[in-house]
């Protein structure tokens, strides 16, 4: 996203907005991760303790999700950069 046409007051304002949004996005991602890994990994309700096997599944699930998000983010950024270059060459 390009905020270069914003004046300094607007840029400062957007910085605060983005900072707040990143915190909210992180919290949402965290909640999402708990829900997803719980749903995938926990299926035994004969005990109230998380088993070793379940715990391992949750650790893998969390790690994999983060790596997945990072890879999607990297590819997404590349494609956006390409699209921007293509757009500039056209005009």
């Amino acid at each position, binding site marked *: 996203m390009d905020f270069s046409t914003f004046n300094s007051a607007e840029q400062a304002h957007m910085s605060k907005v983005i900072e707040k949004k990143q*915190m909210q*996005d992180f919290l949402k991602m965290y909640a999402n991760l708990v829900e997803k890994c719980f749903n995938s990994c926990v299926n035994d309700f004969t005990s109230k303790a998380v088993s070793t096997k379940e715990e391992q599944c949750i650790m893998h699930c969390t790690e994999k999700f*983060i790596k997945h998000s990072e890879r999607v983010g990297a590819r997404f950024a590349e494609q956006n950069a390409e699209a921007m270059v293509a757009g500039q060459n056209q005009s």
Partner: protein
Amino acid sequence: MSFLGRGSASGSGINNDRIEMAITELDTVTDFFNRMVQSCHAKCISTRYAEGDLNKGESVCIDRCVAKFNDVQKKVGEKLQNRGASNNAGSGGSAFGTL
């Protein structure tokens, strides 16, 4: 969140940052609770709906489900912190440019 706008307008000694943080905390707890309700419903409640009461098996399952869900929350949180992922693995984080 219109109330914040109003708060700052009245200027009656309200610290907006503190209020905003409290609201974020409230929203986070509510969201977490709602997801727990949904997940434990999916895990414990039969969708045949033969009766309106929770039966014994469902009740016990709910109690254990809440304990386990809380536990998973802690474990995921620790994992996120250890990984130092707290700041930049967030969804969308990499989608924003810098100012």
